[in-house]
């Protein structure tokens, strides 16, 4: 086989590989959506799950997922922001302790999420006696989310040219002031993209939650918004099975007759939400960027 034929064959193979990868994705999406969409209804999205009979929904799980996501983001964003600001704005490039911290963030980002969940279980559920609760789950998700978010914010900050920092410094503005009022606003579009993408990951995470937020979804009283009542949707101390955990749970040990319907519908909802996060992440970033630079 001469070089030219080899080139043609290789090109063909590469096209086939890329095509098959794309095909796998589309097939999976189509499979989930085609199977799940027929089961979606207002009733399915809003009613409580049933353990023994058919006709249950995913209302509470859906609410739990969003509530946990918001809490986890509220806790992790300020910490990640602070850490990213230090790493990108204050840290000296070749200081030993900064490289140690960087390494530990890297290690943290590669921790299996089940280990994060077990750690959360050990410390918050057992030691601090929080039990299976929203709070334990939110903290576990925070640990899961922190390294990714920190890195993404740090990258966003580093994309703002040094000219801006020099400008601030030359005007007698403190470095911190420059970061907060100049650098951060300028990097908002890419930070938002990063936050929304990580929100998608957090929303779909289950392994870190099984033993922290728990695997049960007690009935909620949606008229009671006092966070100190156990039945209140806002209560941080109640167990809260999320959508992703629910999917895992019914597939591993569910006993209701319509498992496959509920599983299909819930998977479709999960995928749709995650896809929405993914699509809106870039759109939102671009939109903000345009708004920021518009004439």
């Amino acid at each position: 086989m001469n070089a030219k034929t080899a080139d043609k064959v290789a090109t063909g193979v590469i096209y086939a590989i890329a095509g098959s990868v794309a095909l796998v994705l589309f097939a999976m999406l189509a499979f989930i959506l085609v199977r799940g969409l027929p089961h979606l209804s207002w009733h399915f999205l809003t009613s409580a799950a049933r353990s023994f009979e058919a006709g249950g929904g995913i209302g509470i799980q859906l609410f739990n997922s969003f509530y946990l996501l918001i809490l986890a983001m509220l806790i992790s964003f300020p910490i990640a922001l602070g850490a990213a600001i230090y790493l990108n704005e204050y840290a000296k490039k070749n200081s030993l302790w900064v490289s140690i911290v960087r390494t530990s963030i890297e290690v943290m980002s590669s921790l299996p999420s089940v280990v994060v969940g077990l750690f959360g279980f050990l410390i918050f559920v057992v030691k601090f006696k929080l039990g299976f609760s929203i709070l334990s789950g939110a903290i576990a998700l925070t640990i899961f989310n922190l390294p990714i978010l920190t890195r993404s914010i740090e990258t966003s900050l580093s994309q703002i040219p040094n000219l801006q920092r020099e400008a601030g410094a030359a005007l007698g503005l403190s470095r911190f002031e420059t970061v907060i009022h100049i650098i951060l606003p300028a990097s908002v579009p890419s930070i938002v993209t990063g936050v929304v993408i990580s929100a998608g990951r957090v929303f779909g995470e289950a392994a870190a939650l099984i033993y922290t937020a728990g695997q049960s979804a007690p009935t909620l009283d949606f008229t009671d918004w006092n966070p100190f009542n156990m039945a209140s949707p806002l209560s941080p101390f109640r167990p809260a099975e999320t959508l992703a955990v629910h999917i895992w749970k019914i597939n591993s040990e569910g006993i209701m007759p319509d498992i496959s319907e509920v599983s299909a519908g819930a998977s479709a909802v999960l995928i749709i939400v995650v896809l929405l996060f993914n699509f809106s992440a870039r759109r939102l970033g671009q939109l903000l960027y345009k708004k920021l630079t518009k004439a």
Partner: protein
Amino acid sequence: MDLITEKIKKTSLSTKQDRFGKAISILALLFIAAIVVMIFAFVITRGFATFTSNKINVFDFLFGTNWNPSVVDKKTGLPGVGAAPLIIGSLAVTFLAALIATPFAIGTAVFMTEVAKKRGAKIMQPVIELLVGIPSVVYGVIGLTVVVPFVRSIFGGTGLGILSGTIVLCVMILPTITSMTVDTLKAVPRHYRESALAIGATRWQMIYKVILRAATPGILTAIVFGMARAFGEALAVQMVIGNAANMPESLVSPSATLTSVLTMGIGNTVMGSLQNNVLWSLAMILLLMSLVFNILIRWIGSKGELK
């Protein structure tokens, strides 16, 4: 002294702000570092309890083939704490998944960076991003409803097992390896390509003999990253592996991995009991393995720099 000289000598608002900013941002960083230290400290302390308070021999744990912690083995008189089936299960799915995913990942990355840049950016980039974004339980559902029946129809049996786990993991780590390989390929200097083409190499010769060679350390790093993800993945694997902690007889017989046993077991055991302690030992192995993958990545990185 005039006003300006006086002002210059005083600590200004800016300086105070800066001290404050530095302090709170360093606090955030220390918080993260503290969490990492705590995770390691707690999991390792608990993991060691098996060997200290339950007096289990480390070698029996690592190489024993009987995993059944709640039942006492008649031959040895000890509970079945041999984790070898789980370790082998984890390693098998990890290596097999990486083995299958790598050619696809490299092919896709080459497609995106060398063969069809425009279509690569337009179609494949979002495809890869979406693949990364799909939650692992959804992979598990697809594995359970598509892969397992498919394997069953070909090989018989239950369809659950290492093969199904491998297939699911393979798709899951494919985007990780691909996107990191894309980054490495993009970092290969353009003059490498130009000089190869200038001496009459075909595109494939250029890719194969120049680009991929130059990018080898980066590609290896990408593969290790993928393997780290596969090794630590819990739910998707647990859903299709069969959860039978036997020494795997074949690729299509029900087996177990470290993560699957952990996921299933930790809720059903009592804190402080032997059955619970050995589970923490499994978690410790997971943790240490993720450290090993990290060290491996750094080692490849430093080797790559030397060239």
